[in-house]
């Protein structure tokens, strides 16, 4: 599912007004499959190309020769890929001595020798993208074989500027790159994560202990497991600001990559995220209205009904027949008429005057004027 999400997001590209989605594929040495992270890269490339005629790829090849990539693809897709060859002659050694004949390189490979000058680099990529666009591919994805190689030739801020400029450009619909986390400082890795919208990392299934202290036999079995499987962690930054974390297992068999979901659901709760959480003691508006509707016993004077003063000795039904039960006439005028309903002996309370404040007769503190 994680892999499907990534491919779909890369294929769909960006919404208008947004920057293109960018995937940062990370690997590290503890997972021996890391050397096969390139297989994941190729797998993504293949799945993007195989979806139809819409998507085209500009591949910037640093790590392997362009012919290697071309040999991977079936001839039908060779037209939808353009390669920027940064592998053959990155330091311009060959071209300085023997300028290459013009008909040497096949049609879809462009040799680039001046890797220090990043604006030229950017313009070559855009030129290839325009080429593909002219051929009828409306979505162009840029894949960079390894940003680690790029960082050898140019400083970090300029590489990041290049990537952000690619993301902003209207011809590019999505972007993904590979980076080896062991070869860089954590600052560099976090900068690449900062500008990307999806981060996929390959981690070992079994964390290997320190080699110096390890028990050899135990580590061999775990090594074997690491050779075939890896954990594929994906962190997606969504548009609403939430982060989606996914974890899957990766299997490499016969050169093809298979993804399977992890059976145990272990949600990684960000630690120390909630320092102090209390129960909500505020009232919502509805609760406040309900509370206002409740009539408290001391706010009324019986409203014409019997006041049951339950003293705990008798049951309620008995006290109803009690002749000494108090019946007090209501304060408002319409309740005066109810006074004569009951037959038993009762106390009638008739107000002296109408315009006195309610409760003023009973309140002894009324005379106080503070």
């Amino acid at each position, binding site marked *: 599912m994680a892999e499907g999400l990534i491919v779909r997001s890369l294929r769909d590209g960006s919404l208008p007004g947004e920057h293109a989605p960018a995937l940062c594929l990370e690997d590290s040495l503890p997972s021996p499959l890391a050397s096969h992270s390139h297989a994941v890269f190729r797998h993504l490339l293949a799945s993007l190309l195989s979806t139809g005629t819409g998507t085209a790829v500009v591949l910037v090849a640093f790590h392997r020769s362009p012919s290697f990539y071309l040999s991977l693809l079936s001839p039908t897709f060779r037209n939808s890929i353009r390669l920027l060859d940064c592998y053959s002659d990155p330091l311009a050694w060959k071209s300085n001595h023997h300028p290459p004949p013009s008909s040497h390189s096949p049609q879809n490979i462009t040799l680039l020798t001046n890797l220090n000058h990043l604006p030229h680099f950017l313009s070559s990529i855009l030129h290839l993208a325009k080429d593909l666009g002219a051929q009828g591919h409306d979505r162009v994805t840029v894949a960079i074989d390894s940003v680690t190689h790029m960082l050898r030739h140019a400083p970090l801020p300029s590489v990041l500027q290049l990537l952000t400029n690619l993301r*902003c450009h209207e011809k590019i619909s999505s972007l993904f790159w590979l980076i080896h986390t062991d070869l860089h400082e954590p*600052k560099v890795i976090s900068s690449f*994560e900062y500008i990307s919208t999806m981060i996929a990392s390959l981690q070992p299934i079994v964390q290997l202990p320190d080699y110096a202290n390890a028990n050899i036999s135990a580590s061999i079995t775990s090594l074997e497991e690491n050779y075939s499987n890896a954990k594929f962690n994906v962190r997606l*930054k969504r548009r609403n*600001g939430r982060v989606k974390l996914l974890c899957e297992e990766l299997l490499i068999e016969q050169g093809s990559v298979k993804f399977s979901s992890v059976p145990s659901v272990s949600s990684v709760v960000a*630690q120390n995220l*909630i320092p*102090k959480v209390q129960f909500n003691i505020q009232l919502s508006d509805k609760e406040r209205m309900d509370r206002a509707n409740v009539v408290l016993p001391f706010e009324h004077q019986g409203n014409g009904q019997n006041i049951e003063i339950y003293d705990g000795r008798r049951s309620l039904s008995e006290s109803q027949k009690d002749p000494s039960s108090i019946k007090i006439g209501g304060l408002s005028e319409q309740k005066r008429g109810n006074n004569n309903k009951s037959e038993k002996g009762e106390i009638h309370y008739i107000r002296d005057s109408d315009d006195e404040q309610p409760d003023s007769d009973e309140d002894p503190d009324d005379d106080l004027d503070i």
Partner: protein
Amino acid sequence: MATGGGQQERPTRPSSFSRVSSSSFSPASSSSTSTSLPPGVRIGANGAAFVSSGIPDLDRILGGGFLVGSVVMVMEDADAPHHLLLLRNFMSQGIVHGQSVLFAGPTKEPRSFLGTLPSPVVQKEGLKIKHDVSDVQDKEKGLRIAWQYKKYFGEQTAVDSHNRDKKQEFSSDFDLRKPLERQLLNSQNVECISTQDAFDLSKLQNHCLTFVSKLSMKDGINSNAGRIAIQSLCAPQCGYFEKDWDMLSFIRSLRATVQSSNAVAVITFPASVLSNSISKRWQHLADTLLSIRAIPDKDLAKLLTGYQDMLGFLHVHKVAQFNSQVPVILDASTYSLKLQKRKSLVLERLNQAPVEGSSGVSYATSGSCSSSKGSLLDF
């Protein structure tokens, strides 16, 4: 805490708004002094001058707003763009009050960010008056029992409505769906600078200096307050990214400039792209320090109420204090950012979801059951 150390550096603040003596204010005297202050500035506790941050909840949490002459830093989260919400409200509030605004961003066209600024919610006059009257009636109902003392309450309601009026002027609610009017944005007071292609910070520093000197050039009592908003100061794509010490000295000089003027500076920075020691130095340079955290999808739904509406968490690390050695101790330092009715930003305390009766397990243990790593939730 770090706030104690910060106080010793500056016992008096020579900004023109603050009052050194702070006697207890009676309502009558505060109304007379407010006429001499420019719009958007108010005097708070200990005679310190505040400007609103644009979010009324945040003003309340910080004890009045952003202190004039202070530097506010917001630590961004690499995964979520919520720091932009804070910046937008801050800048809109300044423009609405007619204050000068300087904005610096790491994009080629920082002017385009101005197009996303929200406009204030306009409350109709009739509604406002009705709201006041019904409030008084509610109060009367609640106090029905204590009718003998009603004659003493007449004064209180008058003072309350007066305070509410003043509060509306100081900080407004912003509607995030409506953009701010164009003519307000095109005034001379709003400047934008791009930091992406700069190889060092000297240009930005000069801009800030001229901006601040323009503020005090007005002479006289009604010099306006100014707002400096810098987005993602240490963004990795900026040319000066590797120069750690240059960035730190820029912040130090900005702090000194702003301290003796009527400006407030808000700087957002992604702390994750800096090395640990440098990030700590940045955090220590702030007068008020806030941080934004993104929330993982669906993970914490069992632990918090209202989880679906939350955008992210806002954590208050440090609150600036002036003229006082007493540190600010907040009830809660983490708040959730929510959009009320999809338009205005509110900050709410985090509330725990109701404990299920059947489980009968205390929350600390049930929290650790849900995560295999045994995360620490301290209560």
